[in-house]
């Protein structure tokens, strides 16, 4: 099965001075699969996401990506234009703070349409129709298409960011705490939406979260990180219901029961 992975990493190491961010990290992601990376803050989750997506270089180790034609490419050895093209088309990145990704001075339609235009779409009507279709997919009213993002609520901004990312039908999406900073009812709705979209379009995702409930709901597999080391990995239910490593046991037992 390992020759069918979408993304594979072997032996990733990265230290910030004396602080270990990644220590011999291996990771595999299969097409259509959601992998959650959990752990406390400072455990190297976001660093792993940045290294896997080629936005940050590791000190040693490799990341391979298998493209639509089945060719395998080393993400960190790829020329800059190819990597940027990948980030514009096959890949997507959902940030914790949607304002980092959205253009706040550009209408919702323009935000969703940007990736299409970057890929060469040159038909205004088609771009607009596609933008409206995607706003509906993320449950934003079609008549908000000409509104600026600053008139949107926090949850709507996050959904707009998701529409903007998914409009080019990426195969792989990196998500960094997509539900962070939202109130609980908005979180639940957003999680439900992400789960639906990921399943419907068969998107593979690497999801960074400190919230085990998010991992439980969205992920097929979980990686638990502590001080840059992957201490436990496995199927979500297996890891969360029967944690083996003391740190995972601590994480699972420290979740507040309502």
């Amino acid at each position: 099965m390992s020759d069918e992975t979408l993304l594979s990493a072997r032996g990733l190491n990265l230290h910030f001075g004396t602080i270990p961010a990644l220590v011999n990290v291996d990771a595999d992601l299969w097409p259509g699969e959601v992998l959650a990376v959990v752990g406390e803050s400072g455990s190297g989750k976001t660093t792993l996401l940045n290294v896997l997506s080629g936005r940050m270089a590791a000190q040693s180790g490799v990341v391979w990506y298998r493209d639509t034609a089945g060719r395998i490419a080393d993400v960190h050895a790829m020329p800059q234009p190819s990597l940027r093209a990948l980030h514009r088309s096959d890949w997507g990145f959902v940030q914790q703070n949607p304002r980092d990704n959205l253009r706040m001075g550009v209408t919702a339609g323009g935000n969703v349409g940007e990736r299409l235009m970057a890929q060469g779409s040159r038909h205004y009507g088609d771009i607009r129709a596609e933008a409206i279709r995607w706003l509906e997919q993320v449950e934003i009213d079609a008549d908000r298409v000409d509104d600026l993002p600053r008139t949107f609520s926090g949850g709507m901004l996050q959904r707009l960011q998701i529409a903007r990312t998914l409009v080019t039908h990426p195969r792989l999406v990196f998500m960094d705490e997509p539900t962070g900073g939202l109130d609980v009812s908005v979180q639940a709705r957003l999680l439900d939406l992400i789960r639906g979209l990921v399943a419907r379009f068969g998107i593979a995702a690497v999801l960074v979260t400190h919230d085990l409930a998010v991992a439980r709901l969205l992920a097929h597999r979980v990686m638990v990180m502590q001080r840059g080391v992957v201490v436990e990995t496995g199927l979500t239910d297996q890891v969360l219901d029967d944690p083996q490593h003391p740190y995972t046991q601590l994480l699972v037992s420290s979740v507040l029961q309502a």
Partner: protein
Amino acid sequence: MTGYNFAYLDEQTKRMIRRALLKAVAIPGHQVPFGSREMPLPYGWGTGGIQVTAAVLGPNDTLKVIDQGADDTTNAVSIRRFFARTAGVATTTRTAEATIIQTRHRIPEQKLHENQIIVYQVPQPEPLSRLESSRIETTRMHGLAEYGLMHVKLYEDITRFGHVSLSYDYPVMVNDRYLMAPSPIPAFDNPKMDMMPALQLFGAGREKRIYAIPPYTKVVSLDFDDHPFRTTRAPHACGLCGATDSYLDEVVTDDRGGRLFVCSDTDHCETHRDVGHVGSEGVAA
């Protein structure tokens, strides 16, 4: 004139500018940095254009300088006199007789030919400057030909106004590769740049950039398939010469709403009148 080198700049400076010009011509639409000098006129008056003109000017050239199409505005008159005094070259207001035309904000109405060079004065050479403030980032976007952002701007215009609201400095693609600011010429003039037989040179003095379009190069104004690029002009005939095909200036003539529309290209207007055309406000020759 004694005390000055020919055409004011020293020979080393002219060679430096010519090297930048050669590079610019070799890569149509690409902005080449150059060591812009202090010139005896303020930034915004054409310090870039005047340096490019000085570098390409020869003793046998005939110079024409226009500002907003007119030969008789302050800027045009002073630059023309500057070169008449420092280089002793012949000057003219006739587009057809000039070998070098330095311009601000217009391309002459009359078609240019192969033996001419047109030098544009450019305030802002970077077409993406208003969308992306980082020079490092825009350089990278040019390098990788990532121009989706410019279309986002056009998309926003159509969404807000129903059409692209840019009426001057309308961005163009040069030779299917580089996005270029055509300097603040009206969008009306954009089609003249496409496959122009004359060499087009652009100088931005304050921004220290030179770029160029070689003769017979493809220049396309950006647009959408369903919102094609269109030129606009005031729906009037020239009040002096009656021309209906030229770009017009609106001149306020009194405080009771009086308006006069005249050709912005003064040479075009005079040529038209010389052969007997008279507009509604004009006097027969």
